[in-house]
């Protein structure tokens, strides 16, 4: 009995930190989201009546636009990164040269460890309105101040994260496959393309779904990328929440958006992991 109790004691510090600094704060956000906002005041009125107004407000088209903006770019970046990452991951996982594998994995891990600000700044310096590619853009008659262009730059920012991440996840998935299965398809007369489409891809579907899920999660909660590359003209949901706090101090509204965003993020994970399990069984 004492042994079991002393084992649970080891969990205590971590659990205390989680309850105090994660569970409590999120409950406070939930509570705040049901209170009314009084302009000119920081935070809600204490003891005031509870209301759903902050959630009702989110049905206005203005808000739908922020959610659409975030989700469309996140889906695009996830889909593109799978398409680009899969062949690369396959080549790295199946290369005959150990040093190529080691070098490419080190480079990819290096990119992922690189500070997010460094990457965002590098993109700004390259694709920004005064960046090094700006002269080239003006030759090609691309307006670097248009909304469409800014969307593209943000997409590039998301891809800088999601491509390396997807490659690493897919390398793991492909390495777990038996290479003989694809070889069998090839020896039975399938073209390389057909062999991959009918054998390699279906067998690594779980890895593909989890790479998509991780890219999506990254995309929908992105904060730094749209903050800097969006130049204040394109906001993601995260940025909207931050502006509720920093600019107009409307905490209840920010709290309601936070709760909706969190529920959507958790739903996404639930749906995608169900999908992965059912695809694997099929």
């Amino acid at each position, binding site marked *: 009995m004492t042994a079991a109790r002393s084992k649970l004691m080891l969990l205590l510090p971590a659990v205390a930190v989680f309850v105090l600094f994660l569970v409590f704060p999120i409950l406070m956000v939930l509570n705040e989201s049901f209170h009314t906002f009084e302009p000119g005041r920081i935070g809600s009125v204490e003891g005031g009546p509870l209301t759903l107004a902050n959630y009702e407000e989110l049905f206005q088209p203005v808000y739908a636009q922020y959610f659409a903006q975030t989700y469309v770019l996140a889906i695009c970046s996830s889909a593109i990164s799978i398409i680009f990452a899969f062949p690369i991951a396959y080549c790295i996982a199946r290369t005959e040269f150990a040093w190529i594998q080691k070098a490419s994995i080190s480079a990819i891990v290096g990119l992922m460890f690189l500070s997010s600000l460094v990457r965002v700044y590098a993109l700004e310096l390259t694709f920004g309105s005064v960046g090094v590619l700006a002269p080239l853009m003006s030759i090609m008659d691309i307006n670097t101040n248009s909304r469409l262009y800014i969307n593209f730059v943000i997409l590039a920012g998301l891809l800088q994260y999601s491509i*390396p991440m997807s490659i690493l996840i897919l390398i793991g998935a492909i390495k777990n496959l038996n290479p003989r299965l694809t070889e069998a398809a090839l020896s039975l007369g399938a073209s390389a393309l057909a062999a991959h489409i009918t054998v390699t891809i279906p067998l690594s579907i779980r890895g593909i779904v989890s790479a998509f899920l991780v890219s999506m999660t990254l995309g929908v909660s992105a904060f730094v990328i749209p903050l800097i590359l969006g130049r204040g003209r394109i906001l993601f949901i995260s940025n909207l929440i931050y502006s509720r706090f920093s600019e107009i101090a409307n905490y209840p509204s920010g709290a309601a958006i936070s709760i909706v965003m969190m529920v959507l993020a958790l739903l996404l994970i639930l749906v995608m992991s169900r999908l992965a399990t059912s695809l694997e069984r099929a």
Partner: protein
Amino acid sequence: MLSTKERLNADVTVRTKALVGAKPILSKRRVDILLAIAVTAIIAVTALFLLFPVVVTVLMAFDARDYIGPFPPTELSTRWFGKLLEDAYIWAGFRTSLLLAIATTAAAAAMGALAALAISWMSPRWRDFVTTMFLSPLVLPGVIIGFGLLMFFAAFNQVPVFLKLFAGHLIITLPFTIRMTLVGLAGISQTLREAALSLGANERQVFFTVTLPLAKNGIAAGAIFAFAASMDDLTISLFMSDFQTYTLPLALTTLIKSSFDLTIAAAAVALMGLTIVLLIVLDSVLGLERAMGHGTNRIR
């Protein structure tokens, strides 16, 4: 007279031909060549896309010009690094970030190692549940954690900024230390522990002479992830900081938004150096592949 093997071969060839048809063989080869070309193109485009911005930043950091001019720079100099060394604003941020990362890493590594040890002794069902709970900050949007902590600390009077930052960073780094320690512990065979116990060691002795020495690489890898995550965090620090105590990423964000000064490029190159050092250490304590197999969910 054909041997059985040859007859079998002929049979297979006939069947394969029947299956594929005579004509498609040519187009099949063409499809494969197209596939090879497409894959090569994808690799080249992706490598260019991922590495070009980094190369631009490094070269621009050594640019001798006063403004962001056409690429590549015509003359190189180390003047921006000189300016970086004299920049009090960036240095103050760096000092806070470094102290914060060291404090967070030490606390998160200790707490994470203890928690992972307790988790590794649980039954598989509980183990999965508790691990998922502890890893949840990786999938929760950072803004929500920051916003919640802001409201939490607002309930108290005058909490020092450093303490608020510490609490926020602890939440986002604990998942890494717990997960990596679990990876380290998973490599330890239960028989080793049992052998030590049956030879007369008590639980405590087993822990210090068997478990801890074997798990220390996992703990060290977790500490590296935690350090990198703490040095890198912007979202949570943004909610916790004030104008006096701020972290390096915050200082850099302000500069990126307000100036076109290439001092930031020099700072970025310095941070790249730090990343390389961390990677080398990570590779030597756990091996990059093993570490990344279990640490890929770096979600911000």
